[in-house]
């Protein structure tokens, strides 16, 4: 056990904090699966239009990792498959019969004859998780991609105290339904010889964790990104090379995996936190996987349209989606911003009584007048990097962001490696982009650097 008190960073307060009450969203008529949300995937679709599918039927696999199954979260009929340029698979659309009939999981019969989950070996555990289509829930660093099913990670991280704006309260989640949590921990314990690290902050004290002997509890306090797993790994189990794999997953993912081992059921719902300044009814939603936003919009009368700024995931690290798409496979947050189009006269010169800023450059900071923002304006033009030390103020890592970014822009693989690119994830650098006065896309550049390392490093 260790406690880390981080001081660098910033807790972004968005308007529209969700109330902690769960609204259950009914199943949608159409379920949309987007293979492109798995990083570095080359999807090969294994179903045809009009084919019947069940929950757990394989929809596609990754040509680079053909063993990993990506499955349907509902039962019904394949309605259509959308392709983009170069036959890129954009979306697999399934007509949902709302029965949620599940395939038979052949390995589970063997499992139930065993006395305990911890009696399984890594191979068997992997096989069961993969058979159910839940393997992609487990991700690895470096690269934030689906974990390599062949390898054994040096440790596994679970963050119970995410600090993203509008993040789900993980303790609320466990209190709501902890079915499968302990079993899930047992199952993933089989996957590594190293530690299972669960990260809390000092305000959390779940009694549930007391009984777990394989688990190591660590405390990380401080502003965002202190709840990001990348930061935890940086302090507890740093990654030094491409082969140095650490896996991570969320509490919900663990519960899903655990539930599979409890009753053999594939759980196709998840809790998401919906909110943001553009959201009228900020609350927690229980949605079926692959539910399009338009369905949620209709059911809850949110009043969203094509001009709405909808972000799947956190406002700091998610992605824009249109309302016909669904919440991302890995995302637990749905953020809605206001669509604002305003230009301030001489904005750079005036004192700025109501400007959102993390820096001391506007009077608003002095008055503590405006610490929230509700729109997606860039608030400035792109410029060359002028390093006045703002990035370093919001990055609680022993990484020199300025030089790392320059080495990435120069595509200098050797320098990137030395400066710690493998430890980086774009989400940990989000605040650097947010605070940058030259509007340098720091997260984006980190992602490009990781892509380059993945292909060539």
């Amino acid at each position, binding site marked *: 056990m260790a406690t880390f008190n981080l001081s660098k960073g910033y807790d*972004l307060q968005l308007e529209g904090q969700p109330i902690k009450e769960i609204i259950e969203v009914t199943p949608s008529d159409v379920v949309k699966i987007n293979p492109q949300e798995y990083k570095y995937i080359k999807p090969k679709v294994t179903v045809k239009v009009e084919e019947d599918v069940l929950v757990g039927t394989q929809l596609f696999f990754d040509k680079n990792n053909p063993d990993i199954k990506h499955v349907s979260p509902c039962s019904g009929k394949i309605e259509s498959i959308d392709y983009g340029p170069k036959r890129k698979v954009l979306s697999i659309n399934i007509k949902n019969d709302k029965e949620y009939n599940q395939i038979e999981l052949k390995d589970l019969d063997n499992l139930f004859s065993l006395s305990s989950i911890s009696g399984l070996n890594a191979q068997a555990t992997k096989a069961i998780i993969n058979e159910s289509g839940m393997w992609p829930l487990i991700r690895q660093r470096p690269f934030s991609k689906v974990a390599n099913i062949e390898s054994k990670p040096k440790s596994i991280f679970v963050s119970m105290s995410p600090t993203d704006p509008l993040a789900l309260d993980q303790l609320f989640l466990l209190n709501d339904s902890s079915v499968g949590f302990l079993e899930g921990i047992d199952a993933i314990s089989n996957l590594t010889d190293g530690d299972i690290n669960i990260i809390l902050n000092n305000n959390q004290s779940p009694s549930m964790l007391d009984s777990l002997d394989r688990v190591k509890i660590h405390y990380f306090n401080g502003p965002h990104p202190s709840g990001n797993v990348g930061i935890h790994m940086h302090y507890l189990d*740093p990654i*030094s090379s491409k082969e140095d794999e650490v896996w991570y997953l969320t509490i919900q993912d663990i519960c899903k995996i655990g539930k599979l081992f409890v009753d053999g059921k594939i759980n196709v719902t998840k809790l998401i936190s919906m909110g943001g300044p553009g959201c009228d009814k900020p609350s927690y939603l229980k949605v079926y996987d692959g539910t399009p936003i338009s369905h949620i919009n209709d059911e809850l009368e949110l009043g969203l349209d094509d001009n709405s700024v909808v*972000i799947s*995931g956190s*406002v*700091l*690290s*998610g*992605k824009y989606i249109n309302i016909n798409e669904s919440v991302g496979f890995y995302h637990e947050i749905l953020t809605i*911003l206001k669509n604002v*189009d305003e*230009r*301030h*006269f*001489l*904005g*750079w*010169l005036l004192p*700025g009584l109501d400007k*959102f*800023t993390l*820096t*001391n*450059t*506007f009077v608003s900071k002095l008055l503590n007048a405006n610490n929230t*923002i509700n*729109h*997606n*304006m*860039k*608030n*400035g*033009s792109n*410029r*060359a990097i*002028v*390093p*006045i*030390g*703002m990035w*370093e*103020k919001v990055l609680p890592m022993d990484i*020199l962001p*300025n*030089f790392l970014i320059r080495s990435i822009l120069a595509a200098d693989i050797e320098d990137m490696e*030395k*400066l710690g690119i493998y430890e980086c994830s*774009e989400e940990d650098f*989000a*605040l650097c*982009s*947010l*605070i*940058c*006065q*030259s*509007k340098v*896309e720091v*997260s984006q550049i980190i992602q490009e650097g990781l892509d380059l390392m993945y292909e060539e490093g």
Partner: protein
Amino acid sequence: MNFLRKILDNLEPLFKKGGKFESLYPLYEAGDTFLYTPNDKTKTAPFVRDHIDLKRTMILVVMALMPCLLFGIYNVGHQYYHYVETATNATMIDKILIGLQSVIPIYIVTFAVGGLTEVIFAIIRKHEVNEGFLVTGFLIPLVMPPSLPLWMVAISTIFGVVIGKEIFGGTGYNIFNPALVARVFAFFAYPTALSGDTVWVYKMPESDGLSAATSLLASAKESISNMTTPDYGFFSFLNGSLHNQFVDTSNALGMTHADVDLSWTSLFLGLIPGSIGETSTLAVLLGAGLIVITGVGSLKIILGTTLGMFFTSFLLYVFGALIGSTNPMMYLPPHYHFVMGSFAFAMIFMATEPVTSAHSQKGKLYYGLLIGFMCVIIRAINPAYPEGIMLAILFANAFAPLIDYFVIQKNIKQRRGRVAL
């Protein structure tokens, strides 16, 4: 203000791709974003952004320069009535009017010439017009003597902008501070106007025999007399009397025209001849407060430079006392170094320039130390170039990448060691 917005929106198609004045788009963009904050949306995460932009950081530096500029305008007039029109009973208004008469043409020339250079490069290179020149343009006149002919100001500005910045790719890519490059160019290209015993007072007639050396030059006059053994005690070094003993001896020999009040208070307040904006340490410190609080200027560099200067002046005192040097600058106490010449001005506004200083946070401290050290060394050891800080910063600019290199190596080693554990 909506009508202005409408005019700009109507003009926009002309400058967009395919428009009549497509090649002049940088000019339109500069004017458009000068008047209104841009309306770009974020394309990738994070989707919300801080309101800070480069225009804001640059304007803060300009605001921080205001005390120096205003004081400078007054002081130019003050010196004029002190040295040129001594007989009159000039009021403050008179002094300010004379000051404006001197300073405004210098500013007009700097901004016209420098701005044009900037725009030409932006159009040729097809990049946006950078805010960088805003600060450079405000700095250049402040480090020039009010007596400098305007054509020299113009040529120095062009040299500073082109050689100091644009040939490297513009703001963000330069290795030397453009304002300093302009100043150094003027210093070396026109030595008769910027060094020696020439008086830096607006409209000073050249032939009337009166001369008022700048504070640094007056202090640096080497004593050659066989003076009685001075008191080398540490206390007399600290209170400046050791330094004064040497200066006084040289004065007695008629070597300087010490018409300038060189007391610490006078130097701190800055009512002395010198370049337009740098004489008053008080005005500089007012601006320093703003750039340090807003985080635009690095406190690490400022502390480093001050520390380096303190350390080196002590070092020189010990060294000078040991070898019995008669160079008064060897015994100048640190608080005099601080207020004399452009030390404070250059440290606050030029050493802290983020692009040309060391980029790593740790490196900034070492970078500052190097400046402080070099400044005192140049001032003391080579009195022909009394303004050591200017050369010290350019020297440190050149060494900044090396400082960063060592910081990077240390970071790499440190992190490698951590993984090995």
